[in-house]
């Protein structure tokens, strides 16, 4: 555990030292992976399905605010839909507009969740999202995760119906609209997953805020179990064919990811919990203080051997004495005066050059 804590401190130190460079790199990677996944999934507009365009967009995202990743992803998906059919793009535009106008006016900071949820779906690890979001974000993020699920199924509906849309005539405007809207509103799987993810986020958030020992661990385990139970109930009621093995494995993976998040965000030592009680004029205070787990970073002491010593030794040698004798004298002097260099002060302890032979 000590080694892990030491690695964590090193990572934190490294991040704080190079945050200026790391943050754009992280944003670039998120944008690059998301846009690539989107192009891989849809790719109807040939001009957009081009590595150079993705790289330019990802580079732009790296120095623009995080919200621009959402903007670029939305634009890319709408352009792909437009390349397939204008009616599909119209439905997509309306869907995004309703989400942005109604929800993201209140929680703009959660906008990244709406991008990451479809990304995790395409990476086949969607169960990570509700548990990690419940641990890291607030209760309002339940709606963000639900919207993210909606966006995933919008894209899924487009890709599933693309061949049918292509076969429809140009004039069949309402037919294409009907296909898209029916595909979205009649998708029971989307509703069950959105509901289960939103409830999981809320439950995980509520449990991890409770004043109980190991609240984070209890929250993530109960969240994962609840998610599976809701999915199974939804499967029984609506017969949506959710893979139980996939859900179990995904939940295990989600637990592992949540443990990593816990390690970085909430690593505490419950064995040293202190409970104190005091009062002032207005209140009684019942305080439970749980100390964070941390280790002091081991410091490396670099001892510099001055080149002057070598020159001095050489001079002594030339002056008649042997090199070893000269050094021996120096050690003796130092021993007598009690002048030693304290550890950690390096070679310049007490402002002297300890190995400068000329001083002795």
């Amino acid at each position, binding site marked *: 555990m000590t080694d892990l804590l030491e690695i964590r401190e090193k990572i934190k130190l490294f991040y704080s030292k190079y945050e200026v460079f790391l943050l754009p790199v992280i944003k670039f990677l998120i944008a690059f992976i998301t846009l690539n996944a989107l192009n891989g999934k849809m790719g109807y507009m040939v001009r957009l399905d081009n590595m150079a365009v993705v790289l330019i967009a990802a580079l732009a995202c790296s120095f623009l605010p995080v919200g621009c990743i959402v903007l670029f992803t939305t634009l890319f998906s709408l352009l792909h839909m437009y390349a397939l059919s204008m009616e599909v793009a119209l439905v997509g535009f309306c869907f995004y*507009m*309703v989400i942005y106008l*109604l929800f993201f006016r209140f929680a703009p900071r959660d906008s990244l969740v709406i991008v990451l949820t479809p990304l995790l779906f395409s990476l086949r690890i969607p169960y990570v999202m509700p548990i990690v979001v419940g641990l890291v974000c607030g209760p309002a993020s339940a709606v963000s995760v639900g919207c993210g699920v909606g966006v995933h199924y919008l894209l899924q509906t487009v890709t599933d119906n693309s061949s049918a849309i292509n076969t429809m005539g140009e004039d069949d*405007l*309402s037919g294409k*609209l*009907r296909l898209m809207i029916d595909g979205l509103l009649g998708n029971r799987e989307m509703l069950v997953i959105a509901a289960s993810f939103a409830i999981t986020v809320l439950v995980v958030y509520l449990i991890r805020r409770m004043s109980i020992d190991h609240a984070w661990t209890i929250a993530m385990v109960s969240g994962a179990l609840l998610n599976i139970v809701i999915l199974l109930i939804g499967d029984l009621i609506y017969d949506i064919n959710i893979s139980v093995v996939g859900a179990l494995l995904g939940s295990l993976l989600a637990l592992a990811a949540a443990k990593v998040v816990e390690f970085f965000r909430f690593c505490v030592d419950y064995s040293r919990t202190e409970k104190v009680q005091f009062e002032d004029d207005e209140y009684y205070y019942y305080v439970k203080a749980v100390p964070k787990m941390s280790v002091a970073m081991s410091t490396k002491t670099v001892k510099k051997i001055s080149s002057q010593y070598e020159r001095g030794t050489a001079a002594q040698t030339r002056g008649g004495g042997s090199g070893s004798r000269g050094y021996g004298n120096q050690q003796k002097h130092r021993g007598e005066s009690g002048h030693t260099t304290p550890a950690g002060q390096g070679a310049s302890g007490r402002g002297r050059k300890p190995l400068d032979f000329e001083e002795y």
Partner: protein
Amino acid sequence: MLNEERVILMTRMASYEGSPEGRRNVKIGNYFRSDYLALQLLKSLASVTICFAVIFGLYIFYDFEDFMQNLYEIDLVAFVKKVIIYYGVAAGVYLASTYAVCTYRYAKAKRDLKNYYHNLKKLNSLYDEQF
């Protein structure tokens, strides 16, 4: 001469002012409660109206040919009444949620700003002590 306590206080305050939450709270703090709530409710009304128009448009286009064929047969007044009721319910629910969220946010921002202004006063007194 550097005053350590003052430097710590100023650093903490600058950090709060620079954080997204601090910026948002300072912006909210510039309004009276009623003005802030009225502005947010107006924005929400605009949002919900646009969204309702978009969804209504999709509903019409969903079965556009049938709608046009039956336009003269359906009871238009009853249809408009129904649409207005749906709009009223949607707007009411959304405005009520806006009111609840914004009331909570305003109270929280004021609480945080109170702490910030307390620190400002403390900083001022530290300057007075020195000069």
